[in-house]
C-alpha cells in the first residue's frame, strides 16, 4: 500500500503541491542546519534535539529513504538511532521479573530479538517523514541533576497536520545519556510490551518469547 500512496496522477500532485506551498508550507518550512554528531554528554534536551534533527535531516535528503526503501531506512536507524539507545535496558525493563529467570544467553537473544522489533517500529515511523516534517523540543521540566530524565517534544509529521507528542526517557550512563524508553501520545513503549512479554513467557517460557519475537521480525 505504501507504494500506492506515492503514485497519484502527476497533474493532481502538481496542483496540490502548488496549493500546499502557497498556503501552508511557507509558514512551516524551517531550514535544518548541518550539524556535527549528537553529543551524549550534552544536556538531555540538546542531545535529543540533535539526534532527532539529524535523523529527520538524513531521511529528507536520502533518495532511497524517500522512496520508502525499508532496507535503507533500517540501515539509517542502525546508524543514526541505535548508538544513542540502550536496547538492553529497554528489553530488561519490558521483561520485568522474568529477566532474572533468564540465562545470560537468553538475555542476549531476547535483547537482540526485541531490538529488531524496535527497529521496525522506528522504521515505520520514519517512512512518514516528508518535507513538512519538523520537530520542536519542549522546555525542560524536572530535575536537571537527575540521572533519569524525560525530554518532551512535538513532531509535526507533515505540513499542517496536528503535532504529535513524543517524549524520550533517558538515563545517565558512564558514556553519557542513553535513551531507553519512548512515549508517543501518552503511550510508553516499555509499559506497552510488559503484558505481551509476561503473557508469552507464562505460556511458552522465555525461549517461546524469543521465538515469537523472531517470528514477528521475519514476517512481512
Amino acid at each position, binding site marked *: 500500500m505504501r507504494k500506492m500512496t506515492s503514485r497519484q496522477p502527476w497533474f493532481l500532485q502538481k496542483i496540490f503541491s502548488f496549493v500546499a506551498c502557497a498556503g501552508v508550507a511557507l509558514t*512551516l518550512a524551517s531550514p535544518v542546519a548541518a550539524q556535527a554528531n549528537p553529543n551524549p554528554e550534552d544536556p538531555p534536551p540538546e542531545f535529543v534535539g540533535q539526534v532527532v534533527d539529524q535523523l529527520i535531516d538524513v531521511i529528507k535528503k536520502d533518495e532511497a529513504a524517500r522512496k520508502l526503501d525499508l532496507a535503507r531506512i533500517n540501515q539509517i536507524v542502525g546508524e543514526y538511532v541505535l548508538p544513542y539507545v540502550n536496547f538492553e535496558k529497554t528489553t530488561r525493563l519490558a521483561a520485568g521479573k522474568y529477566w532474572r529467570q533468564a540465562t545470560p544467553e537468553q538475555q542476549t537473544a531476547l535483547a537482540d530479538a526485541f531490538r529488531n522489533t*524496535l527497529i521496525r517500529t522506528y522504521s515505520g515511523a520514519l517512512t512518514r517523514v516528508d518535507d513538512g516534517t519538523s520537530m520542536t523540543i519542549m522546555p525542560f521540566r524536572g530535575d536537571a541533576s537527575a540521572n533519569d530524565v524525560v525530554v518532551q517534544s512535538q513532531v509535526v509529521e507533515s505540513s499542517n497536520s*496536528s503535532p504529535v507528542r513524543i517524549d524520550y526517557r533517558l538515563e545517565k550512563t558512564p558514556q553519557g545519556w542513553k535513551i531507553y524508553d519512548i512515549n508517543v501520545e501518552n503511550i510508553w513503549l516499555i509499559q506497552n*510490551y510488559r503484558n*505481551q512479554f509476561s503473557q508469552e513467557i507464562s505460556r511458552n517460557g522465555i525461549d517461546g518469547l524469543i521465538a515469537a519475537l523472531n517470528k514477528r521480525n521475519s514476517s512481512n
Partner: protein
Amino acid sequence: MSTVQFRNVLAGLACSVLAGCAAVGNEPNPADPWEGSNRNMYAINDAVDKAIVRPVTELYAFLVPRPVRTCVLNMFVNITEPWSGLNSILQERGHDGINTLGRFLLNSTAGIGGCIDVASTTGQPRIANDFGITLGVWGVPSGPYLVLPIIGPSTVRDGLSDIPNLYGNQIITIGLINDVALRNSLWGLEFVARRDALLPISKTVDSTALDPYSFIRDAYLQRREAMIRGNLQDAEQLPDYEDFEAIEADEKALGMKEDTPQ
C-alpha cells in the same frame, strides 16, 4: 431450584457469555475481566476492518493527496473542538478550555473552516478531550475494558460516555444539516478520514505487536489514564519499572551474588 442455585446458574451463564471464562489464559488481567468476549469482538472488528474499511480507506489515501486529506481531517476535528473545550471546563481545566475555544475561533476563521491548523503553528496544539475523561476526572472508575462494535477499544465508562460525546460532536454539528444525503455523505467521509489518520498506527501494530489485542488494549488504557491525570503532571507520573539489574547490582555490592555478564 432455589434462588441461590438459580443465581449461580445465572452467574455461570453471564460468565460464559460475557467473559468466555474458559477461553482466557492462566493469568486474567484485572483490567480486562471480559477478555474472552472482548477478543471475539476484536476479531469481528478486525475482520470487518480488513475486508471493507481498510480497502476503502486505502483507496481514499491513494486518490486524495496528503495535504487535502490533512485539510479534510482538520475540518472534521475542528467542529468537535467546542465539545472538547466544554469538557475541559467541566474538568476545571479552564485554561485548556479557553485555549481550545480560542483554537476553534482562530482555525474556523483564519484557518478557513478548520482546514489549516493555524493555532498549532502559533503554539497552541490541540487538547483532545471528551466526556469519558470528564467522568474520570470526577472520580468515576473506568470499569472493565470493553471492545465495542466498530468503535473498538473502550471501557464501560468510556462506552457510556460515547452517547453524550456523539451528541456533542456529531448530532449538534453535522447532524443539524437538513439535507440527508449531504449529512450522511459527510459522516461517511469523516469516518474514512479518521480511519485514514489511524492507518500508520495499524501498520505499526501489525508489524510489531506480539499480540495485537493486548497491544491495543494496553495502549488504550495507558493513554486514557494519562489523559485523566492531565499532561501537566506527566513528568511526575512516569511508569516505575522495577529494574532487576539495579537490584542485582545492589546485591553484588553487598557481596550477595556473583557477577553476571551484561
